[in-house]
Structure formats: C-alpha cells, structure tokens
C-alpha cells in the first residue's frame, strides 16, 4: 500500500477516530490501537422506546433467565408469560418477570392472541416444533442459536421464517446486533490488515456442563448438551457466535472444515468432547482455527485476524489493532488511544447488569458496556414494533391479500441491526457440519449452495 495515497478507506477510519474524539497522549505505535464503535452508531440507542411488545419466553433454563434479566432493562418488553415444562424452572424465572403468567404449556402461550412476540430459549432440539408453531400462530419469534441440531430441522425453521414475511424472525446471533461489529466489519473489509492470512477464535472455561437435579427423570433431559444425539457440542452451542462473527468479518463462507475432539478432562461417561478444534478453509483467504475447552479458563474468549500489515484482536465488544513495523502509516494512528495488551492482566468487575468496568494493564480504562444480548433483544422488540406498524398501515391502505405487494412494501422497511433468518440458517448449517467433522475427526466438504435454502 502506498503511504502517499489517501485511499477512501483511510479517510473513513481517520474521520471516524477524529469524530470519536479519541485524542490521547502520544504513545508508541507498537501498542494496540483500540477500535471502538461510538454509542451513536447504534440506531437502537437513539430511539425512544415508546412501543411496548407483549412478549413471552419459552425455555427458562440458565440462558432463558439471562434473557429475562436483560429484558428487565428494556421498557419495550412487556412480559406476559413465561413457559417451561419444568415447574421449578418457570417459578424461578418468575422472580425475574413477576407480572408474567408462568405455564408449562407452550401451546397456550401461542394461542393467546395478546402475545405478539415469543422468545425461544429451550434446548436446541426442541426449537423446531415450537418455532414453527409460533410462526404459524402469527407471532414474532426470537430463536436462540443454533436454530436446530440437524440439517432437516434447520431447513424447516428457515422455510417457515421465509414464509412468515409479515413477522420478525430473529436468530439469537446477538453479535449481529452489536454496534461494535457494525463498525468493525467495514473497517476490516477496507483492508487495513493488508493480506489476511490467518484467523483464530477460542473459548476456554473450566466448567462441567453437567447439571444435576433432585428429580432423576429430569437429569437426562437437562443434560441434553452432553447427549451426542442432541447436542452440537462446544462448536455449535458456543462457537457458533464467534465463528459467525469471523465469517461475517471475512465476508466469505468456508469450503471445508476439519475437526478434532476429545474428552480430555471430564471423564464422567459423557460422549460429547470437552475439548475441540475445528479448522475452516476459505477460498483465497485466511484459514480460521477455532478451539474451545471446558477444562481450562486460561485466556477466556477472543478472536484474532492476522494480516501482513496489521492484526486485530477482539475480546467481546472490545478490539485492538496491532500494526507490523514495516506497515504503511495511515496518519491517524499517532492520535489514537492505545492500551498495552500483553499477558492477560485485566480484571473484570461487573458493577451492575448493564455496565462493565474494565481495567487493562493498570491504565484503569473504564468502559460502560451494553451486552450484545441486550442490543439483540432491544432491536428485536424495536423491529417487532416497526413491522406491526407497517402491517397495520398496509392493511389500511391496500388489499391485504396482495401478497406480492405486501412482501415488497415490507422488504423496503429498514430494520434495526439483527441477524436475519438467512444468517441463522447459514451459521447453523456450518455448526452442524463442524460438529460432524469433530466427531468423525476428519474433513467435511462444504459445497457451494450449502448455506442457502434451496
């Protein structure tokens, strides 16, 4: 890259930095240059929440309760019902949504005409029946990722979402709603990294995944993640988010995946590997290595994209760029804020549910953060409101039986940032294939057209 030439890419990034006001003391260029989206870049942050959506949640396990905790912060969410086949789980979740009616019967939730939106956070293999019924009942649906544990189920869900053009179907790929990624994607695609050669993603957390219950009949049910027939393992249940983010950043789908898995530590009779590695091959591009383990928490989670001019390190909603010593200068690096990212020294303090104070390398940098889950749910509810209004206005003005016209008008609506059913389908298919390769310890080809619904 010729340093004398001011390419549109460099103009974009310098404008962004200067507008962000991130002037700082002069530091060496060897430090990481933080890449951070402005709060104002997120359309959801600007909008006043005026439209309430009557919402129900189906599936009140650990993640369902995390969703309910997040929904407590969103005035747009009017929780009407919480549903779980296990009464104790629904009761426990009830404390997070006291005005919602607990029930064990999801059909009654779908039959309630008042309920406009449904969040599905059940075990993956139960998504298909609930999601298709919810869409048929005219509900907007937020379905946790992966969408399904088999290709057939994923196709059924994707087809149902495609048909339901008057409704919002949002896969739970929350990274797709995070403004940090909407900033990073065009930045990275503007090629400041030079030639990208290698990418990695990892997730390390020492935890068993095995759950216990005083009720022996429940034990098998709640340990679905350890059941080879029902679970997509670490790559599907955890890795799907990080891998989808990398695929999005790179702007390309892989053509093959080679996996390996082992039960390295948790020798408790489980069949699902507790440590995995998956190697994704991209055409003309970097290869991506994804690793995850339930046996060690060292290094936590993160992703790296390495290029001949620079590399980007991502950790959750934060990111840093590291330039090569011989890389051409853009000019704005000199003014950008830098933090030394060496060995893992950060201490994370969670002050309250919506803020995270992060101190890295002793600089005491504090960054209030909204979780990507909150952005995803906020945008889901906002989009439900938009589509409801658009449907109402269309029906008042035109023939509601004009399906083609209806679909055209709704397609023209610009929705808030969120994963589409296509994103969810592609990510789910990739997770299923990656898990297949991990279990067989071999290569799985990913032919053209695999990631699109035929």
């Amino acid at each position, binding site marked *: 890259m010729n340093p004398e030439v001011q390419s549109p890419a460099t103009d974009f990034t310098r404008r962004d930095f200067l507008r962000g006001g991130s002037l700082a003391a002069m530091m060496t260029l060897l430090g990481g240059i933080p890449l951070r989206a402005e709060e*104002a870049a997120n*359309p959801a942050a*600007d*909008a*006043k929440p005026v439209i309430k959506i009557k919402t129900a949640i189906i599936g009140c396990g650990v993640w369902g309760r995390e969703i309910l905790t997040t929904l407590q912060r969103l005035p747009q969410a009017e929780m009407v019902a919480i549903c779980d086949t296990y009464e104790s789980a629904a009761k426990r979740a009830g404390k997070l949504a006291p005005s919602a009616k607990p029930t064990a019967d999801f059909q009654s939730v779908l039959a309630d005409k008042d309920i406009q939106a449904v969040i599905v956070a059940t075990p993956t293999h139960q998504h298909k029946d609930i999601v298709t019924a919810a869409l048929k009942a005219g509900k907007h649906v937020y379905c946790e990722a992966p969408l399904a544990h088999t290709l057939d189920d994923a196709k059924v869900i994707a087809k149902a979402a495609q048909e339901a053009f008057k409704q919002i179907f949002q896969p739970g790929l929350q990274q797709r709603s995070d403004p940090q990624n909407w900033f990073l994607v065009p930045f990275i695609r503007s090629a400041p990294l030079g030639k990208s050669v290698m990418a990695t993603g990892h997730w390390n957390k020492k935890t068993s995944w095995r759950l216990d219950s005083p009720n022996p009949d429940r034990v098998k049910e709640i340990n679905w993640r350890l059941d080879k027939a029902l679970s997509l393992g670490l790559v599907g249940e955890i890795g799907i988010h990080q891998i989808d983010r990398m695929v999005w950043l790179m702007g390309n789908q892989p053509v093959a995946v080679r996996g390996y898995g082992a039960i390295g530590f948790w020798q408790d009779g489980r069949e699902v590997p507790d440590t995995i590695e998956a190697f994704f091959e991209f055409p003309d591009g970097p290869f991506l290595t994804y690793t995850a383990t339930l046996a060690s928490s060292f290094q936590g989670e993160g992703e790296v994209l390495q290029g001949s001019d620079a590399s980007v390190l991502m950790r959750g909603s934060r990111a840093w760029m590291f330039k090569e010593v011989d890389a051409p200068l853009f000019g704005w690096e000199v003014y950008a804020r830098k933090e030394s990212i060496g060995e893992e020294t950060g201490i994370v303090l969670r002050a309250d549910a919506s803020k995270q104070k992060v101190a890295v390398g002793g600089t005491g940098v504090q960054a209030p953060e909204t979780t990507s889950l909150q952005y995803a749910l906020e945008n889901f509810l906002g989009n439900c409101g938009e589509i409801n*209004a*658009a449907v109402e*206005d*269309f029906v*008042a*003005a*035109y*023939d509601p039986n*004009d399906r083609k*016209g*209806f679909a*055209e*008008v709704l397609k*023209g609506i*610009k929705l808030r940032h969120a994963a589409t059913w296509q994103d969810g389908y592609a990510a789910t298919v990739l997770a299923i294939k990656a898990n297949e390769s991990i279990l067989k310890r071999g290569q799985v080809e990913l032919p053209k057209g695999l990631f699109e619904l035929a």
Partner: protein
Amino acid sequence: MNTTLRTRTLGLFAGACALAATGSLFAQAVTYTAQPGSKVKIEGTSSIHDWDVNGSIIGGTMEVDPKFPDAGTVKPAVVVKIPVRTLKSYQKKMDEVMQETMEMPKFPTIEYKLTELKPKGGKGEFDAVGDLTIHGKTVSTTMPVTIEKLATKTEAGGAMLKISGKTPLKMTTFGIKPVDVNLVVGHITTGDDLKLSFEWVVGEKK
C-alpha cells in the same frame, strides 16, 4: 295504480337505487383503489444539511368517469390518506423529532381531498385543486399533476393509473413550527420550506 304507471315508478325507483348504489353523480363511475408501488417524498432544508423523508403507503380511492383520463370532464372524487409514521428518513432521531413536531398521536395522517381537476394543455396534464390537511390544519392547494395509464394490470385484470405531482409547501402554513434541536451532528434548525412529491398508483376495482 295501473300497470304502466307501476312499471314507470318501478323503473324510476330502480334507477334511483342504481344511482344511490354508485353514490356518485354519474351512472357508470369507475372506482380506483390504492395499490402498492406508490411513493411519497417530503424534502426540507436545515441549518446543517438538506433532508428528506420517504414513504410507500398512499391509501385512498378515486372515482372517475370510465373514459378518464383521456376524456370526461366530471369531477373525480378523490380521497387520499398517508400515515405520518410511514414517512421515514431512517435517521432515528430525526424521525422521532419529526413525529413529535407533527404531534403524530393527535394527527396520525396527512389527508387530501380533491375539489377540482382542471385539464391543461398536454395529454394527462392537469391542475389539481384540493384540500390538503397536515397537522390537523386544512389548506387549499393547487398543484400540477400528471396522470398516465400503466401497461400493467391489477390481479383481477383492472386498469392501473399513476398520478404524479409535486408542490412546494411551508411548515408554518400547517401550524408546524420549524424544528430546533440538538442532534449528534450538532444544533440543527429546519427551514420552513418543504417540497412534497408523490407517485400514486391506483388500480381499477373489479
């Protein structure tokens, strides 16, 4: 009553019923109803930059002489409704400010009623005189419109027309105060002058 008188009376009665059914001044009116494919744009200015909002919902009906727009001098009955919330710039704060300024909950629609359509020189060229209601205030306007027959037909095989027009407006005419607000880009004051342009697609009701 003798038979002839009864027949005549029945005939007159039937005729009156037919007229009442069409609800119009002419016996064979054609009703056109709004179709998807319409567009509406309002352009404005401000102290920082020009802006515009766009929508694709123009509801309403038009009742005309069967030979319209080629011939027919009878006043078309036209009623148009545009929901304010469908007009978007997709710059969230701007849309929110616009909806607040227009007091959208109180006045959710922009409405237009045609009072007269005056043919101009060219084919399909008219001056539309009508009452435009924005923000609850009704003002009489005259604007040039073009009415063209489209090649496409409705699903039921009905004819389709496109009515296009544009007109300058002022916010203050409709009791809307120019907006004065702080946005991310800085302090912004909108100008009073607006330009309303539209393409309204209608299809014959079969």
